[in-house]
């Protein structure tokens, strides 16, 4: 217990990363925590951009026949709102947590491929900038985030708008795929001794499953996009209707990606909530194995339901039946998760921190989204719902009430770990309640406007159609949401320097990340811990409560000799001062690490390098050269593409020839 006392306060973001600061350190970083932080800042920025786009959309629809936006501007706005929120905000927000937390939760010093990790981030950043650059030349994508052919083909969208979208999404796909392979390798290979798969944190489990979804789903959208790109730039006929193409090809490809994408967006939030609820209920997650299987089942079934986005296209009764029934099936594992969360709280001792409020908010609001989801799993009922505001209501309950509530909860929960300081609970309380109320006032009325006949994606509507009241409510709600978000932004930046010092473990968490200082040192764990159960920190702090749980297969409650013995050599155990007296007995090792650098401790860490950034820049340059083909500047286009490719290949070559770490 002695090791838990006197948490060491490091100055946020300076000492935390081995003392290096300044812009160059951030540009060259390969530290998963710094990259996670970069992801967090960038994706929050784009969350706010997407939110402002939503605000303009709601202003335009506040009443009938408004003129806030023109038809063309509105179409760009809703396309970019969807694209931004999905690809530039929620996915990278999840990536921020993957980066920051996976190594901490599995007791690793970094991800498997630190430089690839940096590359993923820079590709995401440049891809996001590329796509949003379109605003400045007045050609933002305008075909919807779903980009249905043939509207997106050259014949119907001759401008650069769709080019930005097609190229931008491919760039972002590169980032997601690189990151996914990285995290799979990390989780499979770099778990601390004793941490078998069924002892991983619930967040890591959800993250693990999401990586497989990414790896399997992104190639499909990439194929769909490459087809479209070839149609647009090189005159092929994948979607050219005049040449007899079947536009349903796009829809099937898109939704084979698009539905797993929904789970890519929601499962990380489920993972965060599965960490938050046990911590603040002082109870382990209820039914851990079932939660794991439910996650896998959701992901698996998620690949078999894509055509429920297409019940109106006329697939015939058999197709409708199959996809309707598989969609209903997905509600079962999802329901299991909801009940397991509730029963984690049942019998617990619940502390309502802001993080916990957001987590409970997710359980309550996602349930609503789940129920409306079942309503349009039934194809005939869906024919009256699809492409109306009922659907908009549904997926905002899932993505805002689910993903964003979970992510906000995760930010309040892990901000102290990242910065060493707590977010203000008082401001957080305002943020939660304004968000909770604002979100319901915005999205609940959309159920009604949809069932009362309001189609989606319309930039204007006439008076007297019965939609005014509900639309006005939605717009007011958006105002409340924006005010709530302002509280969050203020809290986020203010607490950076003014928040209360957090210490190692401000919430009494049970998983490994709470065993190390906040913010963690560059090397995370001075000594790689040995794991004997799912909640090692609770073993240490309240051994009486965890005593009944068998900790190893061989019946030895506290010491996994076998596993520890195998892994000691690999884990670079470095004895340091102030060791706990009997580290083996607790199965844990918690150190002070009061400012020693990795070098002092003799821990080999990857060297910073600028090459991933240059490589990413080369990739973006190469892709963006394509745009000039449509400007009829072929030589310029070729020069840019060749130049970009050259930069990419040379920096990649340099990257691969430089060892990751100094020789040791």
């Amino acid at each position: 217990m002695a090791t838990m006392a006197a948490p060491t306060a490091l100055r946020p973001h300076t000492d935390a990363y081995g003392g290096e600061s300044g812009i160059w350190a951030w540009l060259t970083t390969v530290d998963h925590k710094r990259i996670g932080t970069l992801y967090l800042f960038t994706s929050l920025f784009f969350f706010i951009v997407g939110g402002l786009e939503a605000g303009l959309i709601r202003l335009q629809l506040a009443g009938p026949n408004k003129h806030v936006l023109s038809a063309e501007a509105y179409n760009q706005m809703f396309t970019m709102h969807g694209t931004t929120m999905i690809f530039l905000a929620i996915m990278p927000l999840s990536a921020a947590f993957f980066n920051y937390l996976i190594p901490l939760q599995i007791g690793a010093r970094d991800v498997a491929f630190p430089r690839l990790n940096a590359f993923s981030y820079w590709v995401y950043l440049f891809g996001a900038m590329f796509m949003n650059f379109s605003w400045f030349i007045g050609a933002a994508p305008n075909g919807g985030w779903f980009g249905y052919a043939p509207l997106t083909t050259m014949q119907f969208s001759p401008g650069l708008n769709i080019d930005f979208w097609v190229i931008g999404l491919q760039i972002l796909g590169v980032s997601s795929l690189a990151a996914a392979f990285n995290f799979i390798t990390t989780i499979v290979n770099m778990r601390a001794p004793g941490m078998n798969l069924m002892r991983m944190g619930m967040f890591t489990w959800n993250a693990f499953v999401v990586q497989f979804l990414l790896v399997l789903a992104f190639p499909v959208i990439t194929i769909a996009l490459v087809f479209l790109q070839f149609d647009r730039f090189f005159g092929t006929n994948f979607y050219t209707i005049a040449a007899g193409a079947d536009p349903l090809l796009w829809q099937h490809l898109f939704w084979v990606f698009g539905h797993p994408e929904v789970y890519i967006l929601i499962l990380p939030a489920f993972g965060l909530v599965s960490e938050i609820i046990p911590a603040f209920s002082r109870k382990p997650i209820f039914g851990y194995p079932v939660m794991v299987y439910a996650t896998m089942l959701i992901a698996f079934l998620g690949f078999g339901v894509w055509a429920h986005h297409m019940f109106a296209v006329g697939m015939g009764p058999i197709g409708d039946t199959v996809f309707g029934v598989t969609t209903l099936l997905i509600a079962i594992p999802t329901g299991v998760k909801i009940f397991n969360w509730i029963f984690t709280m049942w019998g617990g001792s619940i502390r309502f921190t802001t993080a916990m409020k957001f987590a409970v908010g997710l359980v309550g609001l996602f349930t609503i989204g789940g129920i409306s989801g079942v309503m349009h799993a039934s194809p005939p009922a869906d024919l009256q719902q699809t492409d109306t505001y009922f659907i908009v209501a549904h997926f905002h309950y899932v993505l805002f009430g689910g993903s964003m509530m979970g992510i906000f909860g995760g930010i309040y929960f892990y901000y102290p770990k990242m910065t060493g300081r707590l977010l203000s609970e008082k401001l957080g309380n305002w943020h939660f309640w304004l968000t909770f109320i604002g979100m319901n006032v915005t999205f609940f009325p959309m159920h009604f406007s949809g069932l009362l006949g309001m189609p989606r994606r319309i930039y204007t509507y006439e008076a007297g159609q019965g939609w005014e009241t509900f639309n006005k409510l939605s717009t007011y709600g958006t105002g409340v949401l924006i005010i709530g978000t302002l509280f969050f932004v203020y809290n986020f930046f203010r607490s950076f320097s003014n928040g209360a010092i957090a210490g190692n473990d401000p919430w009494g968490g049970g998983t490994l990340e709470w065993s190390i200082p906040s913010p963690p040192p560059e090397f995370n764990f001075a000594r790689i811990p040995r794991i004997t159960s799912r909640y090692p920190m609770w073993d240490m702090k309240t051994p009486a409560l965890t005593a009944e749980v068998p900790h190893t297969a061989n019946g030895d409650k506290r010491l996994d000799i076998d596993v520890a013995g195998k892994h000691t050599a690999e884990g670079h155990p470095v004895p340091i001062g102030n060791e706990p007296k009997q580290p083996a007995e607790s199965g844990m090792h918690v150190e002070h690490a009061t400012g020693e650098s990795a070098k002092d401790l003799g821990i080999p860490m990857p060297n910073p390098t600028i090459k991933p950034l240059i490589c990413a820049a080369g990739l973006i340059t190469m892709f963006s050269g394509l745009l000039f083909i449509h400007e009829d500047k072929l030589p310029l286009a070729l020069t840019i593409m060749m130049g970009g490719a050259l930069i990419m290949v040379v920096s990649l070559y340099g990257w691969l020839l430089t060892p990751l770490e100094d020789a040791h």
Partner: protein
Amino acid sequence: MPVPTRLRRPLAAALPALIAVALTACNNAQYPNSVFHDHTEFNRQVGHLFDILLWLGGFVFIFVETLLLYTIWKYRRKSENDRPKHVHGNTTLEILWTAIPAVILAIIAVPTVQTIFKTQAVASADALQVEVWGHQWWWEFRYPQYTTTEASGKIDTLTTANELYLPVGRKVNFKLQTIDVLHSFWIPQMGGKRDLITNHVNYLWFTPDSVGEGAWNGFCAEFCGTSHANMHFKVFTVTPPNFDAWTKHQLTMAAFGAVAPAVAAASAVDTSKRGAQTPQSQPGPSQVVQTTPTTGSPNAAAPGTVAAASIGGQPMSATPVVQQAGYVAFPHDKLPRHVIPQTPLPAGLAYNESLKGDPQRGLDFMTKQMGGGCIGCHAIAGNPMMKALVGPNLTHVASRTTIAGGIYPNDTKHLTLWIKNARRMKPGVIMPTLGAGEYDPVTKTNIPKTGLNDQQIADIVAYLQALK
């Protein structure tokens, strides 16, 4: 810390109550596009399914949220020293909450599958066939069972734009196709939507059986580009005799000088076998059929004005069955408010209202001088110069209540401005800006002096308004 429960509990109780209130309200004329109208067997089946979904969903909602709220209230931290027992799971409970949702979903699945097969069966052969063609951004309706042969031997199919007439009580089978991008055909009060897919043919059928004479809104529900929001259509359910009269009238050539009402009246009586048990021959407000449309000021034939005057208090579906002599179109004064377009005109559009148009001059200008390029896109049956299929068929354009994809009333003012500068009235529209000196938002230039002047436009409008 019981703060969260204080607000959440009333909210949880309020939501189902809100749903109940809203559902009863949905049948009110206040919500003219509600999907809860049971005017067709399609909508009744979907409504039945939705009832099951709503009740079960409501039950699950109340159960889960109550359980959640009770849990967070009951097990809130009372003391910092609380150290709850570590429960890791309970197999019985977990099996239970896997099995019960499975049963609930099975209860949903059975009627779902039954309804799928019922609603997607092949429509019976005696159904009224309507071909629906989607265009960016308007609707073309063709009735292949209703044709006429021109003097030249060419067979014309009854074709309208943005206005759909359906006889009450007869099954109608829509054959859905699109000539450009994807669209989706949706009449919320009649049934579910069905997409129009390029290079595909889709079908949708229903029977407007429990509905009187009435007018309804239709929408495009699939994003189809710039003016997706402006792709409406109007549906008129009429008695079978009136429907037959309407088809007869629509099939007449647009012989200049309009239609003799007596012909249509006679045929209406002849064919009134189906459905109309009470063919009340009450005179009703006599339909304005101008036999001599050459006269009259530009404002005389402004249906929008008439309709606007009758706004308010029109019951939606309770319009009495009116069988009129010379029925050519749904009576303007019976139009319910929700089908009358309210789209405001963009600022700065004006025309000389004092000019009188001459339909003969308009006809000559359009066909002999090819003025305005109308012949490039539009067809008018009986006019050998007007054969193009790009834009809406104009054979009986004056009998329609709206123009421009259902977003403007079909009156002199809107028609004139539409011809003058369509591109400012409907973003992205293919119809060019024609008026001299007008700003074309697509080419971003002003139309030169060679464009149409107000007199020419007035003549064209006069001609179009003669096409009853």
